[in-house]
């Protein structure tokens, strides 16, 4: 018995002394390998008397099992040690900056984003989106919109013209999106509900005017729509667009050749330094013109003004963007200054919706 005990102590010491997996394996082979000390002892069992074997058998088997376990435990510990040692060398500087990737870099222009916002709002009210071309005829830009020939109202539009053609006519760059009203009424039977975003042009340039700018026009034509509805649509639009619960609005009678009655809409705001806050304060800010489509315009578009009626409104998209997002200078919209685009632009995955909010 004491021989076995001695052997076990000897093996245990060797296991503990093994500092790596190969040393441990040597111990294993020396103890329980084919020619290991324990295995050799077990081979002597056959020559023993039954009584001796009865004692030595279990003793040797027990020894083998314990040695095996001890080796496994030690092996596990050595593996852990080795991993720790490896990990200790595998250190990177996680503070190093990474490239953020293109989808975090690209930006949409505020004009595009605002058009998407307008689309979300008006689509919910059943408006489709109509468009027209930038180069127009005098007829659609003025005459069909009830601008009398030579009237000062034409002059106020600072029109860009193209060269006169042999037949005396000349095309022009549309000064407003209103020509598309006429195209729409000519092409489509009422009821009509459309908004018309697009580029417009006037030969005028200073801090608040650029020779090109963006407008959105609204048009509703049916047999019942009146100014009460116009007020509701614009009120809902302003509240939703500016994302405020309540908004002070003031409609003022005004004049546009293509609407009668005509009005301008002011919204309540406050001026704090360079900042305009919509939805608070006692100041007024003019934001758009609107009115009932003029009987002459209906008539020229092929509709009977005693049967059909409706309203139109027009507002500057760039101006809406400036009011909502606080850009101070209109000219910067068209300069493509990367610093401006990164600051005022929108991430491509920020799609404005009513269900997720126009701005997130």
């Amino acid at each position, binding site marked *: 018995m004491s021989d076995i005990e001695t052997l076990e102590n000897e093996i245990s010491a060797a296991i503990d002394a093994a500092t790596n997996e190969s040393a441990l394996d040597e111990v294993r082979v020396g103890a329980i390998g084919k020619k290991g000390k324990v295995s050799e002892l077990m081979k002597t069992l056959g020559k023993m008397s039954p009584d001796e074997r009865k004692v030595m058998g279990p003793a040797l088997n027990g020894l083998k099992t314990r040695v095996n376990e001890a080796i496994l435990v030690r092996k596990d510990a050595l593996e852990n040690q080795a991993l720790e040692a490896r990990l200790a060398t595998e250190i990177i500087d996680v503070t190093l900056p990474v490239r953020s990737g293109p989808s975090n870099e*690209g930006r949409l*222009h505020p*004009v595009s984003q605002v058009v998407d916002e307008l689309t979300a709002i008006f689509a919910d009210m*059943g408006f489709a989106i109509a468009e027209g*071309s930038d180069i127009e005829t005098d007829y659609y830009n003025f005459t069909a919109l009830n601008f009398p020939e030579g009237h000062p109202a034409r002059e106020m539009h600072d029109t860009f013209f193209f060269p006169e053609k042999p037949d005396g006519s000349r095309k022009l760059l549309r000064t407003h999106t209103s020509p598309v009203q006429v195209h729409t009424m000519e092409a489509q039977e009422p009821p009509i509900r459309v908004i018309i975003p697009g580029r417009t042009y006037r030969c005028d340039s200073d801090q608040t005017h650029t020779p090109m700018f963006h407008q959105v026009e609204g048009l509703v034509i049916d047999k019942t729509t009146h*100014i009460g509805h116009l007020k509701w649509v614009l009120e809902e639009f302003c509240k939703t667009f500016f994302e405020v619960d309540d908004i002070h609005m003031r409609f003022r009678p005004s004049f546009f050749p293509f609407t009668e009655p005509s009005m301008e809409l002011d919204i309540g705001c406050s001026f704090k330094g360079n900042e305009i806050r919509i939805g608070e304060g006692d100041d007024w800010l003019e934001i758009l013109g609107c009115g009932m489509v003029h009987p002459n315009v209906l008539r020229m578009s092929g509709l009977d003004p005693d049967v059909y009626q409706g309203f139109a409104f027009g507002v500057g998209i760039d101006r809406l963007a400036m009011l909502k997002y606080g850009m101070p200078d209109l000219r910067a919209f068209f300069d*493509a200054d990367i610093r401006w685009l990164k600051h005022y632009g929108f991430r491509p995955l920020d799609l404005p919706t009513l269900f997720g909010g126009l701005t997130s």
Partner: protein
Amino acid sequence: MKFTLSWLKDHLETSADLDEIVKTLTMVGLEVDSVVNPAEKLRTFKIAKVISAQKHPNADRLKVLAVDTGTGDPVQVVCGAPNARAGLVGVFGKPGDYVPGIDLTLSVGNIRDVESFGMMCSERELELSDEHDGIIDLPEDAPVGETYADYAGLNDPIIEIGLTPNRPDCTGVYGIARDLAAAGLGELKENRPEPIDGTFPCPTKVRLEFGDTAPLCPAFGLRLVRGVKNGPSPKWLQQRLIAIDLRPINLLVDITNYITFDRGRPLHVFDAAKVQGDLVVRRGQTGETLVALDDKEYSVDEDVCVIADDNGLESLAGIMGGAASGCDENTVDVLIESALWDPLNIAHTGRRLGVGSDARYRFERGVDPAFMLPGIEQATKMVLELGGGTPSEISLVGKVPEPEMIIHFPLSEIKRLVGLEVYPTEAKVILSRLGFWVSGSTEDVKVAVPTWRPDIHGKADLVEEIMRIVGVDKVPVTPLPREQHIGQKVLTQGQIRRNKARRALAVRGLDEAVTWSFISKIQADLFGGGSAELALANPISTDMSDMRPSLIPGLVMASQRNADRAHADVALFEVGQVFASDETDGQQMLATGLRRGTAVLTGPGRHWSGNSEDVSAFDAKADALSVLEAIGVNVNNLQVSRDAPAWFHPGRSGTLKLGPKNTLAVFGELHPKVLRDLQVKSAIAVFEVFLDAIPEPRRKGSRTRGVLNIADLMSVRRDFAFLLDRSMDVDKLVKAAKGADKSVIDSVTVFDIYEGAGVAEDKKSVAIDVVIQPRTKTLTDEEIDAISVKVIAAVEKVTGGQLRK
């Protein structure tokens, strides 16, 4: 249009205060732009009397004054005005007062060793006039110590309204008063000028000579007043003119200006002594010129209406008189003209000659014909009262038109167009107060339009009149009924494509720019544009003269501006219109992008993980393909060819086509000559996707995606390398390999291109990875080898290359 509160009250009997008047003006459509009380800025200035004036001990031109300001001991003031003298009553500003005319807040001064405790002011210093020859010299009985502004009647707020072009009646204070009276703010005073009998016939004859041409002057009235004493007009008149930014000239001129603003009735006065012979109203003749009252010379022709005498032209009719026959302080006999002119002709002439005036402003909008003669009477009355003289009879030629506009007006139109309930009696009262004649006792009335409202043509105009007087704020807000309960798809295919293109490009790191639709002629020419029909006749500058044929030049210039600001590596795109002709279908929508410097997909510039290389045609190709893919084009069906337009680098550009003719996109590096002409020195890769060229997708009846067919068997990969001619398109190799056995070859990837040692000089080695996907059973080695043989044979046949061994 400017006027003062007291001027308004000449015509409006009202108890309303300024605030109420201002609010009402805006709410009836006469939007108030500003209200300024000139007394406000002069509140602190008091009337003071100079007790003594001594010569300054150290300066010849200065005086030391003792001034009684009405508040105890006299104050010492140093003054340089030549008219400063003992006994003068003037206007005193004390230390702390702000003097608007010299933009200075007074403090205790020390002028050449004498202290000065304030200032005696000139009119210019108080912004009362340009007078600066001396300090203000008031009558001796002016009350010392009182506020000067109150004494001088300056406490009269100036109201400015932004007048819409449809309201000529409100180019006169009287018309504004009428609107306010209609809105319930008081009573309009009658104030109709009484006719004055002339004592002799007007000696100057007038002839309207238009021959066969369209007459430009329907009626012309003229009256001579003899023996007038002209000179400065009275203080009250001058003050009113100054308040509305007009410069007082002399009594006769000031009277015409006054009536222009009082009644919206422009008049003209000639010095009768300077008029030779009869006055002829006619069309001008080419070669004739006139120096007008603004001292500028104008050339006229037969489209311009003029008034001439034996000396030649005397007036640009209805716009501005001539300098030669104008009235000055020596005028004794004055001819007063009141006429009517063709509004279109006035507008046209004014625009062509570039001359604006208060008369033109009114005549082109349309003045009240019925006030033509009352206008001359009102002027005569003022001349006689303020300058004396004897009036002639009025000589009238032509015929004053009597426009008669009767509108059939069912009052139900108000409710129909506005949604507002107005009692018939209220509607009728409003119209009557505005000067309309309403007849008929039912709710279906006839309305006669007054002569001063040329803007009223029909029912809708009357509805507006009633709405603006009742108040737009009274219109009840009414929800627009929903046409369907759930919103429908409203965007067109084109709009959806543009939106997808925008967001796809932004996701690839490009920033969206919006650049001008017009570019310079040079740029338009470089990119295939520049035709005469697309050049603006009146461009704002030479940089913005031609409609753009391409979005590339705008983006290149934008990238250059950024480079000039030290942001050289930019990636920009624009989704917008280009113009091939001036017809509607000449306008097309493009998505165009540009990468500059090292602005590649992963980001520009140097980085510890690896520096970015200069952009190349392949960056642009990848962008173009992702736009097409985002829009729904199957890019595997596209053909790549080398026929990009001339502004691309011929060897580093390509087109993406669907079929042989339909080009969906072009991409590449720009031609070095184009870069040179645009003065850009940097790597630039661009692409253009022609959004309108992409065919409409076929409409599918169902939204199902088809059955998903995934093989459970392991795929096998085989690598091949081929030696090809260097000029051979790798695309052909890939297509040949793919087509070798379509039933099992899933994909072909090019993973290496090699030229150099070990490969003949005119050859390149192209290595591909072929994925073979068994469908029904595992392939045997023999079967796989057979597929390999097919691949090799197909590639060698199509490309003329050889398997590299």
